[in-house]
């Protein structure tokens, strides 16, 4: 029963990755990181519930709980930065900030 959960988790992760690299709206880009977090959470809990050796443990769920904490902190900081960038340029386009990259 481990395999279908891993398949679902990797599907969610890859869809989030595709959205992360292709979308240009800064808010959607951050939303796609949350989608990747969901894939990882499903994987972590699946590995804890159906371990390769031994009895099921709760370690995967604890790790996922800490991941939730990091996701909440990331959302707060990321959205604060996005609103700051929006107030600078009046647009959410990630392409408006291309001069930040190194030449």
């Amino acid at each position, binding site marked *: *029963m*481990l*395999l*279908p*959960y891993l*398949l*679902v988790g*990797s*599907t*969610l992760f*890859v*869809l*989030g990755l*595709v959205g992360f*690299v*292709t*979308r*240009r*709206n800064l*808010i*959607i880009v951050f*939303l796609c990181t*949350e*989608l990747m977090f*969901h894939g990882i*959470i*499903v994987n972590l*809990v699946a590995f804890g*519930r*159906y371990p*390769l*050796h031994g*009895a*099921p443990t*709760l370690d995967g*769920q*604890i790790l*996922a*709980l*800490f991941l*939730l*904490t990091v*996701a*909440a*902190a990331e959302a*707060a*900081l990321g*959205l*604060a930065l*996005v*609103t*700051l960038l929006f*107030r*600078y*340029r*009046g*647009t*959410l386009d*990630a*392409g408006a900030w291309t001069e930040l990259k190194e030449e």
Partner: protein
Amino acid sequence: MMTPFVLLALVTLGGIGLFLAMPGGRGAPGRAAPLLLAIAAALLIAALVRLTAGPRNAWLILLALVGAVGAVRMITHAQPVYSALYFILVAVSATGLLVLMDAGFLAAALLIIYGGAILVTYVFVIMLAQQSGGPRPYDRQAREPALGVFCGFLILSALASYITAGGAALPPPAPAGEAGIGSVANVGALLLTEYVVGVQLAGVLLLAAMVGAIAIARRKAALEEGRRHWEVG
């Protein structure tokens, strides 16, 4: 062995369908993208039916399908608000998957934190930054959709083939004993004994994030100057 072909067809059709469905992928995709994605969803069901066994598999397949559809609609929708709403669908389906894996407390926490806190913040910011008059050009045209979808589904095909290749060697799933059930009592006891340092560190992290967010959001005077500079220059 049928599964590799199912997975290959699933990844290929899903990738093409997703590329056609991306905003600006191929102009007017018409009916091709939904059709391809529907075939890919049917193949996903077939692959999951092959992989699952046991009484809970119908729920698993349903939740997986809802999550995949929500994720695809989320990354292809041109309206940010609808993307956020479809993400709630993904969060609900992930919650259901966690419930199936006996992780009740984590499922409740996920739904409360994502559906209740993070998504509300996202929708609030989207409303704050939303200009009137339809989707913006940067929402209607994705950046390098072909390359992004190709690389993403290359990774997915590698992951899926790796996952399914070792399936026969897996031990049969053990029933989660009393200690393996993710109830509030079990998770709480573990958090306050073995992982107590991690809980403290998480508190410090949240405090730092809060201070940082307030510090970033407070900068007002410099902002007007920056915008003037951008408009002039």
